[in-house]
């Protein structure tokens, strides 16, 4: 099992004491599988995704990544894991504004020491980014920016890909197209994919659908 989440809890400081957001979450995800995470706004979907992606820490519980407990890692360890094992795609602000499209795509792969120029060129071509390769993020439309983010996440060839409302800012047609490209590319690499979404249409395209309610998965 690539990812094994056991009894994870997380609460945030509220006005009167801690407010529990995750109250014992169990979840598993293996290579080649896709999974959608749905739930009301504020239910803790992003929080769970951050914990799974070593971006944030849980209060208690185990998060086994390929058998290793992420919770036991220090900051440098988590950073190393993010660098080489996880590709994240957020709804916005995915890109480094000072680097152009190609540099953005190559960035994390180079950080992880896994640069593959042919792979990058392939991603640019498949995602239709060729004409924009030398542009800067602020010169791109929202859909184009999300494609760059997808390319960047895949260029690392991570084992786990996390996407938080990757198409939330896009119109329906563009969203469908971007999602299709993402799914096809992920399938090529054989990575595990977890997508947080409000959209039933998006969720329907995943192997499994999970719902977060009252801090637990159903």
């Amino acid at each position, binding site marked *: 099992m690539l990812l094994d989440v056991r009894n994870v809890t997380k609460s945030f400081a509220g006005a009167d004491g801690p407010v529990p957001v995750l109250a014992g979450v169990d979840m598993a995800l293996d290579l080649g599988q896709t999974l959608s995470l749905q739930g009301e706004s504020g239910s803790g979907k992003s929080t769970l995704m951050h914990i799974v992606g070593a971006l944030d820490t849980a209060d208690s519980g185990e998060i086994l990544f390929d058998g290793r407990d992420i919770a036991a890692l220090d900051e440098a360890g988590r950073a190393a894991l*993010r*660098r080489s094992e996880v590709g994240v795609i957020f*709804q916005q602000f995915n890109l480094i504004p*000072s680097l152009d499209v190609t540099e953005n795509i190559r960035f994390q792969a180079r950080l992880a020491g896994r640069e593959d120029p042919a792979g990058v060129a392939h991603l640019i071509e498949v995602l239709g980014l060729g004409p924009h390769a030398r542009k800067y993020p602020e010169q791109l439309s929202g859909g184009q920016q999300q494609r760059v983010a997808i390319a960047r996440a895949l260029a690392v060839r991570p084992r786990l890909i996390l996407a938080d*409302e990757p198409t939330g800012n896009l119109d329906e047609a563009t969203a469908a197209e971007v999602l299709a490209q993402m799914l096809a590319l992920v399938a090529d690499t054989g990575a595990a994919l977890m997508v947080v979404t409000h959209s039933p249409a998006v969720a329907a395209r995943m192997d499994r659908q999970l719902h977060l309610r009252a801090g637990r998965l159903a």
Partner: protein
Amino acid sequence: MTRACLQALWSHWRRNPLQLFTFLAGLALATALWSGVQAINAEARASYDAAATTLGEGRFDQVLPKAGEGFAQEVYVDLRRAGWQVSPVVEGRLRLDDGAVRVIGLDPLTTPGALSPVAGTRDIDLSGFLTVGVLFADVATAARLADLPQEVVVDASVAPDTVLTDVGVAQRLLERPGTLSRLIVAPEQPMGLLPLADVAPGLMRVAAQGSSDVGQLTDSFHLNLTAFGLLSFAVGIFIVHGTIGLVFEQRRGMVRTLRTLGVPLRRLMGLMAAELLALSLVAGMIGVVLGYIVAALLLPDVAATLEGLYGAQVAGGLQLRPVWWLSGLGIAVLGAGLAGAGALWRIARMPILASARPRAWAMVAGRGRQVQGAVAVVLLALAAVIGALDLGLLASFVLLGCLMIGAALALPLIVGAVLALGQARARGVISGWFWADTRQQLPGLSLALMALLLAMAANVGVSTMVSSFRLTFVDFLDQRLFADAYVRGIDRDQMPGVEAYLIAQGYDVLPLLSVDTRLAGVPSELMGARVGPAYARNWSFVDAGPDAWAQVAAGEAVIANEQLVRRAGLWLGDALDIGDGLRLPLVGVYGDYGNPVGQAIVAETLFTSLFPEEAPRQFGVLGAPAEDLRADLGAEFGVPSSSVVDQAAVKAFSLGIFERTFTVTAALNVLTLAVAGFAILMSLLTLSAIRLPQLAPVWAMGLTRGTLARIDLLRALVLAALTAVLALPLGLALAWVLLAVVNVQAFGWRLPMYLFPLDYARLGVLTLAAAGLAALWPAFRMARTPVSQLLGVFANER
């Protein structure tokens, strides 16, 4: 509506206290820098004045007894009654166990112009001052006075081996009750005075000594320090500009919201302007106080004198106080106004639906950058043109302004180009991002970097100037005061007798004759010198033909000082009309720092044939210790000891002045760099809010916050180093303008420029330290940024 708007505007500060703090602190620091420099400048001036008075040969005429060591105090009272503005001085040598010191008693209330330390001591117990007395001396001398009953105050402006005190105390110490040694004549006297000979027949008036006068030299020095004050003002304005620009940027969202809610633009602008005025007044007041404290802290030994400046006792002190406040507040308001006007203008032109997010960055070279580059080029070209032409003092200040502002405007463009080069050549992934990201930060940091550039350039310039000044002046003293002692200021009829006596004693005597005249239309002194090997050994020329001294000695040629030659438009080989139609070729030009008038030297024989009735006014005496001469001439001719000047003492004193000046300069260096460092700190802190979206993706992709913080620190150092490298040539250009243009325009002589690489290296290190320290806290904050804040960047509610 006004209330509601004000509340909304104010709420921004309440939510962002850090921004309010940086705004107030930036403005206050700029004001403090300005007022601090003013205070230090005023202090330096005061101590020079005091020093000149100590030497007794300053800018003032003196009244001396025709014979003997002193005269009765009643004569002074008679003169005062007759309306003479004179101030009494008692002078003598006090035997201590380990040798003697020179005691000078002054009357603080009547000493003209000078803020002598005696006048500046307000916190000293008055009864003690009157009964036992207070003595002022430098550290070394003070230590030797411990056995005396009087309180001893250490004051570095007092000459070595000299004790300064009140007249009455000096009379008691020297056991000369009721006697005075000389009187200082104030430059302004009432009309219709009774002649001196009528009131006090036993006294004679001696004109202020020109040749070794420190006065004009220090005037030049003050002019240069004033230029430094202006530069510090420029540094301050840049900081204020940066702060205010950022404050307005940060409130774009607020402005937009208020306008969509229907607040008229005019009203909004008016309110923001009023807010700016109020805040700048507050900041200005803090700044003035801060400047005072800083000046007092940096120069603890002059605290007393400073107090004299702001206290009410000394004449002029009362006027200084409001001026001080006014100029400080004026700077704050003016600076804020200058900077605010531009920001308000931009807000006025901002479309109502413009992006509410601060414009963090525009990578694409905008029109603004092109305009900036063009203005920089125009200003620098203008500076070059003014430098090449000869347009007067005002123009040379314009030149300074063009040079500094042009360079400051060019800085971001040059740094940007270097960073682009760095990015193009970067190999590693992180270094590639580092250069790109640094370029992105550049617009937000440019104002702070400009301030750093100006600060370091000003420091390089002023250090070069001061050090060049010292080298030149010491050289000049060595050259001019090569005799061991000088005898002067004695009765003319006595001169021949004294000369004969000295020659009979076996001393080498070098009489100097002089008349005031016009040479080539320039008010000048014509001097006759007994030219001998000593001159050839000791004098150096700015420019001279071969055998210059031999030709002068033979009465066939003349040499002249730089002032005369430059003003008259002459140079070597030209003929100079020295009177009676006698035209002699000019064979040498010498530097004559500090002399306001032209001067030419011919052989003594030629001079006496032209002016048979003139007697020497002064002798240089070789091979005679001043101490012995004082005793001999006093016993033989009743020459007062103050008429025998010890060359070594004058030199030591002048060096003392420079030591003090160095303290002042070092203090100014630290102060300006600290302020520039603060500008960097503020910019970094303000940027850090904008920066989060830039850093969050990098962090998410696997760089730790610690790494990011270290990179940020490195970035500040790289930018500071680039700035320092550019500041060096700018500072040298500045020094050149001060020494070779401003000084020539103001005083007619040019100071040679020397280079001091070690000083520059030290300044470079200081600059890096300032930038590094400034970046430390933002970096620390970066390392501590809560993860939730970084993740918040990606949160959907944005």
